[in-house]
């Protein structure tokens, strides 16, 4: 009964499925019209058709897939490392007032340093291979994930902690049965933000110096006045970000089924 009601509400506020392709089509048509009317040279603004052609050649010679896989690897490893280390540190900080007091200023200060500014440094130290990108990526993801972990653990109701104490739950049981599920909604929110941030992280790293990846492809396109290629790379990045974001949304739906009951 409850479910039915919330479904009808969703239908009322959510646009129907066909609006998205239509909007995309309109956007492409407008773009094509713009190029047609003002006769921009392809190295300033290629038409969607030219971008489409470039996309096909990049697919056919396998270069797009190669660079996409490189970026994807960097992003996923960066995400995994960033999320894991941030949640681990967040858990430790929430358990130790002392640690939190000592480390907080450094963590906040570290957040004030733009990743783009230290990306060249990391490339000097760790080379222009995958490792430096993974590090840049995990750095980008680290802070928002840490903050969300702290907020999530802080939101664990004190009465539920008391309950676990009276039941003589072990630390591990409290972690798996209470702290993890209770902070999961906030953690997943952090992961959603991190998913898109990781794309930025990987590209920033690649732009600063790389020999593969979509950021590298953008640099190549720019250098050769192959602006269509730049567009192909950018759209592929957007696509990657959307897929990643969507995966986290799916994960949320799976893991937070109990929230829909309300």
């Amino acid at each position, binding site marked *: 009964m*409850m479910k039915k009601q919330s479904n009808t509400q969703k239908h009322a506020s959510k646009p129907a499925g066909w609006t998205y392709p239509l909007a995309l089509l309109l956007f492409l048509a407008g773009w094509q019209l713009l190029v047609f009317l003002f006769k921009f040279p392809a190295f300033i603004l290629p038409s969607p058709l030219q971008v489409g052609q470039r996309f096909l050649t990049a697919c056919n010679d396998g270069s797009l897939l190669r660079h996409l896989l490189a970026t994807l690897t960097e992003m996923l490893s960066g995400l995994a490392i960033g999320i894991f280390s941030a949640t681990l540190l967040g858990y430790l900080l929430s358990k130790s007032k002392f640690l939190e007091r000592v480390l907080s200023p450094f963590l906040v200060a570290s957040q004030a340093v733009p990743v783009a500014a230290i990306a060249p440094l990391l490339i000097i130290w760790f080379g222009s291979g995958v490792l430096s990108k993974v590090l840049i990526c995990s750095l980008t993801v680290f802070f928002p994930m840490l903050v969300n972990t702290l907020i999530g653990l802080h939101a664990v*109701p004190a*009465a*539920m902690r*008391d*309950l*676990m*104490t*009276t*039941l*003589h*739950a072990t630390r591990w*049981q409290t972690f798996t*049965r*209470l702290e993890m*599920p*209770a902070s*999961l909604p906030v953690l997943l929110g952090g992961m959603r933000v991190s998913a898109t941030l990781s794309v930025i992280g990987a590209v920033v790293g690649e732009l600063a110096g790389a020999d593969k990846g979509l950021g590298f492809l953008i640099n190549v396109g720019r250098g050769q006045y192959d602006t269509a290629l730049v567009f192909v790379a950018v759209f592929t990045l957007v696509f990657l970000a959307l897929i990643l974001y969507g995966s986290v949304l799916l994960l949320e739906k799976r893991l*937070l089924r*109990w*929230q829909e*009951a*309300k």
Partner: protein
Amino acid sequence: MNETGSFAFQFQDVSMTFPEKDGELEALEHIHFTVPPRQFLCILGPSGSGKSTLLRLLAGLLTPTAGSILYPQDQQPSVGLVFQQANLMPWRDVWENITLPLELRKLPEAESAGRTQRMVELVGLQDFAHAWPATLSGGMAQRVAIARALIQDPDLLLLDEPFGALDAITRERMGAELLHIWEQSRKTVVLVTHSISESLLLSDRVIVLSRRPGTVCLDMLNDLPRPRSEETRYDPRFIQLSRHLRQAIQE
């Protein structure tokens, strides 16, 4: 009180102070009483008199800053704790919430399922065993909380204003159910409540705490005959006792 006989727990000159920004906050002062096994004890007192603190001390969530609490064989008894809010885990359904204490004790699956089934039936939630807590009414949620507190068969059942958030009718029914459960299992029960009539209808004994710092300002045996019903409210003895309690609370 008989200090040498068998007892469920003994407060021995217990005081509890909390550190505050400027100085200390005395929540309980020189609390001294003994509770025999299977007694149904009610704690009354104005807000801030330390009733919850007393329960938390009993549950082992706090340790007294002075004095001590004695248990038989010097062993912290197992406790079932029920709060004013049902305090259910929203990511677990009714069944999973009730079975949590057994899960933590790693009971074999078969035994745990059997006991959970019995508790679900005891609190009459067969049809809601797999409902999410968010879909339950206040009374149903509180019943789940009571089932969860009882499932591990604790020595002590501690209830902190368990029916405070319920409407009057549900509250009376839950009180009767609690009494029924107590009569079957005969555990030692400590119930914190704000309701004088609730305490008289349920308890063997009522302890009234004074305004902060909480001290025992009345320790009264409740000799109203059992079984008690709604009719008991019109018993002259009931009226006499409730006047007595009211005076003690207002002092």
